[in-house]
């Protein structure tokens, strides 16, 4: 899932300092699961903002609403009235959901309430760790299921660097060396020799190096439905 963290309250308050009607819009998908921007967090942030406003000039009304998903227009439409009625929307979604708001409602004023961090998983209660770099050319097949792109600080593809020590990365003693994990796992499974296999250079143009990503599935493309002529309705084919 996409993992995010809420911005500090001071920063959020600063971004709405000129506004009278603010909507805190939560998202019910990834950021709910990582406790950053779901229904509960939207409610708490809105209450905190109201109290902060009350303690200063008291001129800010803050409502909150949470929709199932901010990154799809169909779900966003269910919040259309609330979004259009607000001077500013504080989006508690990842950067995708936040941008979807202004793409769907170009007149809306939006500020992000979260910092989107990475694609990751909860490794234990309260801890999330990065697991995927979204590079567009997956190499897990060659690394026995451990991603060197996201879990190696240098995204190395050819083994550990000189900074690897005691299974840890030189960047931080709390960071495991991905290549140490890969070698350990391959040894345990008895096929360390697979690392000697040669592979084509990785296609980095599928990642950020190739510019903004876009996928078009022609088999799924549909023209928007046209208007139905009442005279032809129900005639079948």
């Amino acid at each position: 899932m996409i993992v995010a963290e809420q911005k500090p309250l001071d920063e959020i308050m600063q971004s709405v300092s000129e506004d009278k009607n603010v909507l805190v819009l939560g998202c019910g998908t990834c950021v709910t699961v990582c406790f950053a921007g779901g229904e509960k967090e939207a409610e708490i942030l809105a209450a905190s903002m109201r109290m902060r406003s009350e303690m200063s000039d008291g001129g800010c009304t803050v409502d909150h609403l949470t929709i199932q998903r901010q990154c799809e227009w169909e779900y966003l439409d269910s919040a259309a009235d609330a979004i259009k009625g607000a001077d500013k929307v504080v989006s508690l979604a990842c950067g995708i959901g936040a941008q979807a708001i202004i793409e769907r409602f170009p007149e809306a004023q939006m500020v992000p309430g979260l910092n989107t961090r990475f694609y990751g998983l909860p490794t234990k209660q309260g801890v999330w760790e990065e697991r995927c770099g979204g590079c567009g050319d997956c190499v897990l097949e060659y690394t026995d299921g451990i991603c060197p792109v996201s879990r190696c600080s240098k995204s190395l593809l050819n083994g550990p660097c000189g900074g690897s020590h005691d299974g840890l990365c030189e960047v931080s003693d709390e960071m495991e060396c991905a290549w140490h994990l890969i070698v350990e796992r391959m040894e345990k499974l008895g096929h360390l020799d697979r690392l000697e296999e040669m592979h084509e250079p990785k296609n980095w143009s599928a990642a950020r190096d190739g510019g903004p990503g876009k996928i078009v599935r022609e088999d799924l493309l549909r023209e928007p439905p046209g208007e139905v002529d009442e005279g032809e309705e129900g005639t079948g084919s």
Partner: protein
Amino acid sequence: MSEFKPGIVAFCCHHCAYGAADLAGAMRLAYPDSIRVVRLPCTGKLDVAHVLSAFEHGADGVMVAG
């Protein structure tokens, strides 16, 4: 100037603290009228949002008993 009398919202568990408050009443024990008791099925029900809501509505303090 009158003495400050803090308004306290007390979130009480139905099964223990609320029963104790009931018993206090039966025993004619008095507590300040600025304490407002909110009965919960269990204090595990209490959420940060409820505490914030109490403060937002003017409480000076919140007590959780369970």
